């Protein structure tokens, strides 16, 4: 390839990526063609302040490299875009987010993770199956009597929030406020914040959840919350501040991405009626379908890493401090790893994907998400076998946490 071709090709890809990263709804709805372009352009694409990595094997190697550190990649851009008098809002948001489990590194990450990992272990999650089924039955009862049912607004955001509220002993009525503030805070996470609004959402979430947690102190409560109350980290009791921070992190992490799996996944399935009907006739495929939907309809199409020193990983050189955008959605549709990757096929066997990441930061809630989605698929196909799309899906105008605002359906009951 000549250098002029490289330049021209990279320019085109860069423009497409910028529009995708900015949350262009049409591109968010179908990023696959852009992912294919990026993979074809080369293993890495340096553009603006970022290094975009798109191929499965490279991303997997970076995620599994213990030298790779998580970071919030939009900090510089956020501060630069914020008027000086408002920068303290931005700085407090950055300081708050940096303390989340998912954003921490090294010993601090290990300390926080060990406080909660058993609460999300395969054994603990398996024991939640009865609760998840019960919550789903109730939600599907309500959905069945909706005049205009919507599987995102009536189902997708309630399911994971009701589950995480139950795990953390938070009153279920709080889920509406939690959802509202989470949506606003999410704009900060994806780099699209109005800092004052996101700061307000952060304060509201912290106050609401902090008050609820405090009200349970000394009372009979759930195993996870009791465990946190009892927790000692490195010989010291977890501070109240840490406890609230961790709980906010769990509430947010425990619902938003799962909401997106519900919406994205049901849209993918209902857009492929043969696969929906296959699942209706073969409910034993629900677990395999869950994995395929996690791959095909990735709710987290990218995550970020950086290195503290110059490194080489899988033959690729990265300089210290470069901001790596790892396109998980692209990795999950890389034809070097997945045969016919743009085909939704719920019968794929032994499927492995990168939707939950990999390595030291592998998603804490993966077993719970898998349980929730498998149960949801089993119950919705059994109860509404004739379900079909009934209107245009509406995508959130964000890319990095990719999900739907609305997905109207016809339940096929009449």
């Amino acid at each position, binding site marked *: 390839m000549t250098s002029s071709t490289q330049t021209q090709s990279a320019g085109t890809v860069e423009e497409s990526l910028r529009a995708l990263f900015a949350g262009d709804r049409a591109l968010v709805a179908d990023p696959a063609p852009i992912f294919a372009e990026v993979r074809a352009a080369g293993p890495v694409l340096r553009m603006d302040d970022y290094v975009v990595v798109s191929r499965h094997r490279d991303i*997997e190697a970076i*995620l*599994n490299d213990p030298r790779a550190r998580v970071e919030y990649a939009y900090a510089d851009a956020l501060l630069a875009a914020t008027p000086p008098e408002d920068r303290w809002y931005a700085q407090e948001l950055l300081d708050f987010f940096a303390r989340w489990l998912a954003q921490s590194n090294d010993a601090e990450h290990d300390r926080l*993770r*060990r406080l909660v*990992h*058993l609460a999300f*272990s*395969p*054994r*603990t*999650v*398996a024991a939640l199956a009865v609760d998840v089924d019960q919550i789903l039955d109730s939600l599907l009862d309500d959905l069945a009597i909706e005049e205009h049912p919507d599987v995102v607004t009536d189902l997708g955001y309630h399911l994971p929030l009701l589950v995480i509220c139950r795990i953390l002993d938070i009153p279920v009525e709080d889920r509406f406020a939690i959802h509202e503030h989470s949506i606003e805070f999410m704009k900060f996470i994806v780099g699209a914040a109005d800092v004052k609004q996101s700061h307000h959402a952060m304060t509201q979430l912290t106050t609401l959840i902090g008050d609820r947690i405090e009200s349970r102190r000394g009372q009979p409560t759930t195993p996870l919350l009791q465990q946190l109350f009892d927790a000692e980290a490195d010989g010291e009791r977890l501070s109240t501040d840490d406890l609230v921070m961790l709980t906010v992190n769990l509430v947010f992490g425990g619902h938003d991405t799962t909401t997106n799996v519900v919406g994205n996944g049901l849209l993918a399935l209902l857009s492929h009626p043969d696969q929906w009907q296959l699942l209706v006739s073969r409910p034993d495929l629900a677990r395999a379908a869950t994995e395929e939907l996690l791959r095909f309809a990735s709710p987290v199409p990218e995550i970020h890493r950086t290195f503290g020193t110059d490194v080489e990983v899988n033959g690729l050189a990265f300089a210290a401090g470069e901001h790596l955008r790892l396109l998980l959605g692209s990795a999950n549709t890389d034809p070097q790893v997945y045969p016919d990757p743009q085909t939704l096929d719920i019968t794929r066997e*032994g499927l*492995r994907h990168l939707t*939950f990441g*990999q*390595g*030291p930061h*592998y998603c*804490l809630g*993966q*077993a719970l998400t*898998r*349980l929730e989605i498998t149960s949801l698929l089993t119950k919705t196909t059994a109860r509404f076998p004739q379900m079909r799309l009934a209107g245009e899906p509406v995508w959130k105008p964000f890319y990095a946490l990719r999900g739907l605002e609305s997905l109207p359906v016809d339940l096929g009951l009449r």
Partner: protein
Amino acid sequence: MAKITYLLTDGSAQSLDVPTGTSVRDAALADGLPGIEGECGGFLNCATCHVYLDEEWVDRLPAAEELEDELLEGTAAERQPTSRLSCQLVVDDSWDGLTVQMPESQY
């Protein structure tokens, strides 16, 4: 190199020649053996690479460290005195003849 035998849940057995320095998890996944998920990549995060050691091997292998011991409390199948996470079982030549049993489930 050591010959490691995996007892699968369907009652069959499969033996692999595992190079020194490779984990019991990695060898099984590379060969496509069913029964080990090993989702997190071998970083003590998921507890889905659980295996049961043959009893005679329990004291011959390095004991589980603290974090592995904690995570074994969260495996889907019941923890036994022979339970280990196979990502932490990094093979050397002296392990020739080791047998591990896959659990009924990793979830």
